[in-house]
């Protein structure tokens, strides 16, 4: 390796606000992406949390890509307003893809962001009403619906002041029929978990041993073991043990995001100079060994995973099923919207994806969206581009639209006046129709307004703080 040492310089995690409601029969807190979230929008939120400086490359990993044949990472790139010279690529398929990004980014520097919406087949009524005593006759459990989770996390490698040094990356490969999915289906299948566990146990121990030996360590302080195989995660603490903590996924199996979410949860609490070993068992095992630095405590994520797990909104089970396309509901008697068109979307990319407006250099009036002719002083083409995504604002007026087409009605719309000037009208994300008032404080989040004609309409929404 040449040039300055590449270390971990930032990380971030994003968990959606919704949890499956009690009517689903799921015990615990199944983290659920909203109808307007996908692996691209959640990746944007995790990346926003992770980035302090511009990354030299962008790697987006997912098992639930919103598009094929079109680079999903490009929308993330646009939302982050990265220079076009920063390459961006998708790593799609299994939870292993994330480690392909880690391998690349720890060599050259770059942001690895992984995100997933995990969809399982709906659970049966028997399962929901059956107690532990009925375990012997329980039908198969839908792992992804019951014990999975939706979320995103990002790690940023670069030459700057590291929050953790990379001690090693290692991996081993197994050809194994443990989890698989027909590319045309949203839900997958799994073999008996004990079969996979037995095969995984050996490679997990082997990768851990290699990394620790190369680093001259007897054990790591923190060990995170994640896997789509529940046998592995159930025994995560005993497979490889950390001297300070032994953990697994903080939300249940979240696909490509899982190893990074596990790592983020540890970095949220780890002390300086502590070693962290992340092991991800998917068709083999990948491992990343880090040692935190004294800079970590000052640059932890402002939104720790544990804090994001709290304060959630329950979503009724039928609503959840309709969000995932597993239950078709009656829609308002309104036409479906037109698909966003390619050329206008490209011309407006800085606005649509980056929420960048224009500020008049003559009078200072901020235009959201950007305009060429100033609305305040009529100056023409006297504009500078201004980033708006990090602005916060207050609600000037609002409405709950029960007639508008939406994948999840009603639509709540707010007119937002931004601190420091500028106004625009936005849909509200994660909306509680009764929780909005004139003066409510909002921030911006990247979402998918709707999908029409197989085109996802990405844009920003307001979320009440």
């Amino acid at each position: 390796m040449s040039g300055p040492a590449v270390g971990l310089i930032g990380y971030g995690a994003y968990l959606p606000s919704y949890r499956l409601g009690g009517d689903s029969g799921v015990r615990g807190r199944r983290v659920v992406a909203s109808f307007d979230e996908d692996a691209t929008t959640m990746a944007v939120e995790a990346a926003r949390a992770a980035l302090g400086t511009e990354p030299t490359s962008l790697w987006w990993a997912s098992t639930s890509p919103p598009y094929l044949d079109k680079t999903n990472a490009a929308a993330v790139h646009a939302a982050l307003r990265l220079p076009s010279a920063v390459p961006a690529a998708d790593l799609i398929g299994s939870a292993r893809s994330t480690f392909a990004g880690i391998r690349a980014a720890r060599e050259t520097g770059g942001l690895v962001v992984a995100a997933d919406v995990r969809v399982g087949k709906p659970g049966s009524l028997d399962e929901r009403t059956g107690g532990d005593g009925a375990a012997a006759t329980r039908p198969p459990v839908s792992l992804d619906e019951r014990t999975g989770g939706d979320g995103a996390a990002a790690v940023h490698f670069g030459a700057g002041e590291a929050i953790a040094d990379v001690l090693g990356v290692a991996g081993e490969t197994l050809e194994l029929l443990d989890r698989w999915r027909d590319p045309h289906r949203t839900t997958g299948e799994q073999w008996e978990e004990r079969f996979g566990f037995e095969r995984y146990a050996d490679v997990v121990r082997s990768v851990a041993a290699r990394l620790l030996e190369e680093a001259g360590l007897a054990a790591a302080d923190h060990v995170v073991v994640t896997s789509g195989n529940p046998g592995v995660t159930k025994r995560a603490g005993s497979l490889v043990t950390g001297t300070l903590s032994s953990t697994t996924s903080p939300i249940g199996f979240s696909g490509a995001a899982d190893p990074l979410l596990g790592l983020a949860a540890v970095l949220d609490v780890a002390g300086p100079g502590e070693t962290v070993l992340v092991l991800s068992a998917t068709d083999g095992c990948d491992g990343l060994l880090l040692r935190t630095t004294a800079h970590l405590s000052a640059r932890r994520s402002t939104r720790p995973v544990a804090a994001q797990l709290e304060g959630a909104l329950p979503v009724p089970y039928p609503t959840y099923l309709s969000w995932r396309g597993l239950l078709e509901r009656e829609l308002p008697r309104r036409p479906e919207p037109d698909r966003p068109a390619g050329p206008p979307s490209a011309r407006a990319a800085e606005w649509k994806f980056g929420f960048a407006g224009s500020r008049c250099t003559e009078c200072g009036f901020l235009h959201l969206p950007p305009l060429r002719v100033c609305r305040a002083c009529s100056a023409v083409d006297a504009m500078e581009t201004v980033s708006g995504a990090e602005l916060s604002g207050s609600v000037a007026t609002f409405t709950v639209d029960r007639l508008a087409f939406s994948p999840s009605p009603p639509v709540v719309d707010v007119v937002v006046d931004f601190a420091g000037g500028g106004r625009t009208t936005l849909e509200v994300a994660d909306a509680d129709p009764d929780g909005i008032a004139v003066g409510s404080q909002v921030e911006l989040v990247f979402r998918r307004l709707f999908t029409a004609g197989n085109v996802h309409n990405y844009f920003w929404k307001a979320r009440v703080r």
Partner: protein
Amino acid sequence: MASKGIKDAVAIVGMGCTRFGERWDSSTDDLLIEAVGECLTSAGVARDDVDAYWLGTLNSGQSGLALSRPLGLDYKPVTRVENYCATGSESFRNACYAVASGAYDRVMAVGVEKLKDSGFSGLLRADPPSDGTAAELSLTAPAAFSLLDPAYTSKYGVDPRAMREAMTHVAWKNHVNGAQNPKAQFRKEVSRETIDGAPRVAGRLGIFDCSGVSDGAAAALVVRAEDAYDYTDRPIFVKALSLASGPMRGGLDPDYDFTSFPEVVHTATDAYAQAGITDPRSELSMAEVHDCFTPTELVLMEDLGFADRGQAWKDALGGDFDAAGRLPVNIDGGLKSFGHPVGASGLRMLYEAWLQLRGEADQRQLADPRLALTHNLGGRPGGCVSFVSVVGNERG
């Protein structure tokens, strides 16, 4: 610098208007033939004596062919115009200018809309391909106008319950008026309890706060004022025509507070200047205004100068704009109860002025009206087109 105006240069000498409503048995063509036929009969003019036509429709047809084909017009100039919900007024405005210019002797303004064939609720938009980010693309019209309600109560410190009562009063009044109108879509009085308890559509707007979605057509024959008495002994004269298209600044500017339509203020001021009106409250006998949603009518009372700022809700509750009030507003039922076939609505407003100023409004006839105002609006709070006309039954 405002428009110079064409006060008393042209007059309406005939009008037609179909019954508005769910006209399942009538096509757009049928509605046009009905309205144009009634207009020709009213003026005592043969079809071939009309020199030119302006046709207003939002979505029910394209080009002049949408009128020349159903009527079988032989090579007449027909222009189709569109200006959102002010389309009918735009058709009339252009017809007036065509006569005033001296280019034609007799010009017909026609407006039509066939909304009920779509199977959808409310208005549909035909938008050009876009980036998908504009709120107008998703926010429905009732939602856009419902923004007025919290903004108004918050600005003027009005108890939201009192505001709700005022909105209910507007719907109640316009239903009472419409019940007296044989051409109205809804010919039934509706109790305040029913209006208030209706399912919510957007914000605090229930279904009775929204104008009727309907099919219909209307037409007016315009001639030079000096020729008007050749056609009828009771022509009505055009005193003012004003149109303003806003810069759509309100949606971008935190200084806009969603309690007014600046476009309406501009057109009202301009129209009063053209007509020589200094005190609209005492000089106007009646007003037909764009009550697309109940809070719209309240805000319009202030923008048109009929009520002081922050007081329209109180004046409305006091009955000032009822049929027996100080200034009857939407005596024909308005968009609320007469219905709102978009391209026809501006001409429908003039049709009521025509009937009232000629003393032909039967059971809803006002006592000795002289000057009438029509106000037509297209768009939404923050950015719209606004039209105001003043017409009277005396020249000079």
